[in-house]
């Protein structure tokens, strides 16, 4: 009887103990600097790899219901839809072998997706369930393309009036502007060395942080920079990110977030990280990357937490989700602000 009580009391006191041995203390991986630090969760996705595998995870967006949509070039399920806790809710898509770019646009309450497909050489507009609404083929009207194969779109950005800006990031590096019905308006950028040219126009986004002067932020990944253009396609300025093979810019609130595929200092060694810029487009935090220094100082990976991050999605609670390319078919990671 006394022994039983002793064991019971010992067990209860163990449960109640506030001091957890250091051995069991959570090994928290906190990434980033300044006011943009995050705790990394590599086990966010609860998808079953046997039922819903991924190949390259290219991009992610959040819809108005709070769901996280992931685009992968795995044709068993090109689109995976999760809740914010990583539970897989739905999947669709088998016709997107080159699924690369994913942008969400709210047309007065009706949400649409724009998918860039590298293999189909097209931009496909769908609803959130995958029903195709419009397809954009290679822009003959530009006079720059001899065949569809030369057009390899990587990203779209949609202006408030519905105009579609398509970045031909793996083709000729033009930004082609269409109206909401798909009618060609103009093109700009293009491969070259002038300041208004682009080399690997991998990403594009609309920047309305200065509401009086909306503009486009376009990636020139080979030049390790972003370039700012106005909505009519005129070059404004370059935002240099030395050392960073930056993917697409994603803006939420005052901040610009971007996955950096790899560090120039260590090419093809899984040297990626995530960079965060403030309203003045100065780097203020690198997640798994070097501490931000003087503008123009080289950036590089410091912690091998990511291999080849390809996109960052920022949700309504400022959590981040990182999708990775060529990283062992790994599912996205989540990062929570601390």
């Amino acid at each position, binding site marked *: 009887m006394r022994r039983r009580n002793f064991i019971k009391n010992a*067990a209860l006191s*163990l449960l109640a103990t506030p001091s957890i041995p250091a051995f069991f*203390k959570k090994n928290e*991986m906190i990434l980033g600097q300044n006011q943009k630090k995050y705790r990394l969760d590599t086990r966010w996705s609860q998808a079953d790899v046997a039922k819903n595998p991924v190949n390259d995870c290219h991009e992610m967006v959040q819809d108005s219901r709070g769901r996280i949509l992931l685009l992968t070039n795995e044709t068993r399920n090109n689109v995976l839809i999760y809740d914010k806790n990583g539970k897989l809710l739905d999947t669709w898509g088998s016709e997107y072998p080159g699924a690369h770019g994913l942008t969400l646009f709210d047309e007065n309450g009706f949400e649409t997706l724009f998918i860039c497909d590298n293999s189909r050489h097209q931009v496909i507009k769908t609803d959130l369930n995958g029903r195709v609404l419009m397809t954009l083929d290679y822009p003959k009207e530009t006079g720059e393309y001899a065949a569809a194969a030369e057009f390899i779109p990587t990203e779209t950005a949609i202006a408030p009036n519905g105009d579609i800006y398509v970045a031909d990031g793996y083709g000729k590096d033009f930004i082609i502007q269409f109206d909401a019905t798909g009618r060609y308006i103009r093109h700009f950028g293009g491969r070259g060395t002038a300041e208004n040219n682009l080399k690997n126009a991998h990403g594009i986004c609309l920047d309305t942080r200065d509401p009086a002067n909306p503009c486009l932020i376009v990636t020139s990944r080979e030049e390790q920079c972003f370039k700012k253009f106005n909505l009519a396609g005129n070059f404004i300025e370059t935002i240099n990110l030395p050392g960073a093979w930056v993917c697409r810019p994603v803006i939420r609130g005052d901040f610009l977030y971007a996955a950096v595929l790899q560090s120039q200092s260590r090419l093809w060694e899984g040297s990626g990280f995530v960079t965060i810029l403030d309203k003045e487009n100065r780097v203020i935090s690198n997640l798994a990357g*070097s501490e931000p220094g003087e503008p123009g100082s080289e950036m*590089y990976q*410091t912690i091998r937490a990511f291999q080849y991050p390809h996109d960052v999605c920022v949700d309504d609670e400022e959590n981040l989700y990182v999708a990775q390319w060529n990283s062992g078919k790994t599912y996205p990671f989540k990062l929570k602000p601390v």
Partner: protein
Amino acid sequence: MKQFIFGLFCLFLGQFRALSQETFQLAPPILVYENRFFEQKMAVAIKFEMAETAIHFTLDGSEPTEKSPKYRRPFFIKKNGTKLRARVFGAGFLPSEIVETQFFKTGFSIKKMTQTSANSKYPGLGDRNLIDGKGAKTDLHDPAWQGYQADSVELKFVFSKKETVSKMAVDALQNQGAWIFLPQKVSVFYKKPGSDALHFLVEKNFPASENDPKTACKTLFVDFPKTKTSEIVVKIQPLARIPDWHAGAGAKTWLFLDEVNFY
């Protein structure tokens, strides 16, 4: 009671599983220097801007540990053949891989040289590429690499003046994953003024390439009898065929060269 203890034990284990996370490795530091070849000395810095980490390095070829000198500020390399090895350590992380580079004094001044044309895919940086003192880094796309897929590569050097020469150093890239192998044989000859005849100095066979996954720039040395001359001819024979243990067994190899020095 037993069930209670068992349940508690499972709860305990479950907590442990939920709390334990993977430990990440630090990325390697970046070695910053103008050139691997120097006249008197070369300034070297080591970069790794992350709080609560420390860079440790060695200059004697040994593996850097936390007991090795801690990097604090840039320093000079003055000794020919110095091997710099560095590594980053930080609490809560696995130590980074070791990064290393070897530094050499520049050799005799070379007035001009001629060379077998490199493959158009990897043309190098022109006629003086192998003697401009700017060594290529390990990236095979570094434009300073001259790439060959040939049976033999011939290089002819004319020194600025007659020198007593007894040693040659040539940099070659090893990246077996990209089918780039170290050469099989190097032969060195000299010429007498006014004559095209080649006078044999040495033929050096290099050991058969072993399976080595690391990409590295290797400096190969060839010693030969002291000779006073102003013209040297070097014939480099690439490895004829990719070895049997390699996925590309039997195919032609690539030879990547940059920087030749004579001492």
